[in-house]
């Protein structure tokens, strides 16, 4: 029996039989690409002409001064086309789809970022595109839905289950088993059945490859620590991968603490004790589930972190002690966002801000000779509805009320 696709105890490909053949083909194509330097070069070329890779590594001088400890560097995945690291994975899979000759892509999306990125890639590559998005997330991220539709994608609100990311994944799988011949499922994070975790990590590893060169150039040596938020784990794996063999670089994944671990309203898989090993959505990892194995509802102010599972690769690195996991609460996130906007003129996505929270906690305990890198996985201006809401901004509310009234009267 082929035990491929496992990272330690985690991973695998727990897929319905109807997908077996397509996974065979996907594995074969991916393996070919992985072993073909020309493919990686084509990928880098695409990312540097269509998106803006290499993304900068910004020295956050004000924040560094403010905390008086480590030099804080920020890896600017927010400057990618479509506003987040999701573009890396999606464009990479797009190239794969072209090679496999498929004509249609589907994707799940939580925050809407992966959906946006996939719809964008589909437009660019001339593919039909359907995006599954939990109804709850459609509500939270309406602007992204608008753009996806404008880009020609069909957005399907998923009304099953908790109506968030995991349910969108289930629904995407249902589409896939139905339309398997023509369709590729562009999985959005380093989760799901093999080869997705490995493939997504590979495409995202461009982040860390660049960051390693950049930090050496600017700081003269490897960073002491790297912080990344962890939803599925793709931006974290993206920046961590290159540094895993660097023993002195501490890798810190930050999960969504939501209302606080004690409240149960969170998405803490690896930094708490609420999760346990399980198999769902095609792979084995630590899931937030009850004693029967039923998945729990999760909570985060950041839709993109609001997920029950976590990358099997990260579960393995966690188990082996190579990556440390922490959690940031919604409240801490809003405070760190505020500080980052005011001090550096940067608007991290709510997801990304989780990494900032933990970095801010640890920076003061390091010295100015140490560098830390925060992966700013995306930009926050997509989150205007969530952020303005979370800040309880009165003029925003007034603006929306007024617009709403205008639209009601038009009817």
């Amino acid at each position, binding site marked *: 029996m082929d035990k491929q696709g496992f990272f330690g105890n985690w991973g695998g490909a727990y*897929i*319905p039989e109807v997908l077996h053949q397509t996974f065979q083909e996907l594995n074969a194509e991916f393996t070919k690409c992985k072993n073909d330097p020309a493919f990686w070069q084509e990928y880098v070329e695409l990312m540097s002409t269509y998106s803006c890779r290499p993304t900068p590594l910004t020295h956050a001088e004000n924040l560094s001064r403010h905390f008086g400890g480590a030099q804080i560097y920020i890896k600017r995945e927010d400057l990618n086309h479509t506003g987040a690291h999701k573009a890396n994975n999606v464009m990479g899979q797009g190239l794969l789809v072209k090679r496999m000759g498929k004509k249609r892509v589907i994707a799940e999306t939580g925050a809407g970022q992966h959906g946006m990125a996939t719809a964008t890639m589909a437009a660019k590559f001339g593919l039909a595109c359907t995006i599954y998005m939990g109804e709850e997330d459609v509500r939270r991220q309406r602007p992204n839905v608008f753009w996806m539709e404008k880009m020609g994608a069909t957005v399907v609100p998923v009304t099953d289950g908790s109506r968030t990311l995991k349910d969108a994944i289930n629904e995407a799988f249902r589409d896939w088993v139905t339309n398997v011949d023509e369709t590729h499922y562009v999985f959005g994070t380093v989760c799901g059945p093999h080869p997705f975790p490995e493939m997504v990590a590979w495409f995202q590893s461009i982040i860390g490859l660049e960051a390693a060169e950049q930090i050496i150039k600017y700081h003269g040596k490897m960073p002491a620590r790297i912080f990344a938020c962890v939803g599925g784990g793709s931006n974290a794996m993206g920046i961590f991968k290159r540094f895993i063999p660097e023993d002195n670089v501490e890798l810190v994944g930050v999960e969504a603490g939501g209302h606080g671990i004690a409240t149960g309203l969170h998405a803490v898989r690896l930094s708490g004790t609420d999760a346990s090993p399980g198999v*769902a*959505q095609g792979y084995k990892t630590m899931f937030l*589930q009850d004693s029967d194995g039923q998945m729990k509802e999760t909570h985060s102010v950041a839709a993109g972190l609001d997920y029950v599972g976590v990358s099997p690769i990260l579960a393995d690195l966690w188990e082996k002690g190579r990556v440390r996991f922490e959690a940031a609460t919604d409240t801490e996130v809003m405070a760190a966002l505020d500080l980052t906007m005011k001090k550096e003129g940067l608007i991290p996505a709510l997801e990304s801000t989780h990494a900032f929270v933990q970095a801010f906690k640890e920076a003061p305990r390091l010295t100015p000779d140490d560098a830390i890198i925060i992966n700013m996985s995306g930009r926050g201006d997509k989150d205007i509805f969530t952020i303005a809401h979370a800040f309880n901004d009165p003029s925003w509310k007034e603006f929306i009320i007024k617009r709403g009234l205008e639209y009601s009267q038009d009817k």
Partner: protein
Amino acid sequence: MQLEQQLRDRLKKKDILLMTHIVLGYPSFDTNREVIRQMVANGVDCIEMQIPFSEPMADGPVIVRANQEALRNGTRVADCLAFSAEMTATHDIPFLFMTYYNIIFKYGEKAFFAKAKACGIKGFIVPDLPPEEGESFLQLAAEYEIAPILIFAPTSTDERMRVLASHGQGFIYCVARRGVTGVKSVIGQDVVEYLKRCRQATSLPLAVGFGIQDRDDVSALIGKADMAVIGSQTIRLVDEQGAGLVGPFIAGLR
């Protein structure tokens, strides 16, 4: 061999068997009890009881909703096990568990097999557990003599079917088409060709499921397969017209 033998015995008297599907705890165990009673009374040969799971990835909307409702009603795995023991004690047909792998994994594979055995369960259908990931599962199945029902899909190559068949017992569940449960399948020439391929790949009985909804569907399968699987359709029936009509519906299928 137990399950396969039971089915073969029944096949001596009928030109095609019927397997039905229920979701445990939906809409309630009481209704499950009544529905099963009527099914058995009207000649169903085998029943797959789905232990509800929060992520029913391979199911269509009717069964997805049934899973969700069952869980919302507080259905626990322990309740399902107890109910299954009652059913196997009451009715003289083989009962199977259908569920997703996490239910078994989380319970503990070995413990689950032991418990299912004690409950009189004859086989397991686990749509998200390909043999590659089921090494220990298949071993325990052999040990506990519970048939691991493997699945053929129209996308399976001949070679793949042979691999699957080598791990399967009891019967092979042939998925009639790409897709999820609940959408009507048309038993056309392509399905016939597919079932021929299935037949060539295994000597196990062939069950055909996914979208078998009426007498026409069932009779179309006679001679091409051994068992027709009625899934979403009885759930729909109970939803819309109550448990009382299940008996006549089943009686009318053959």
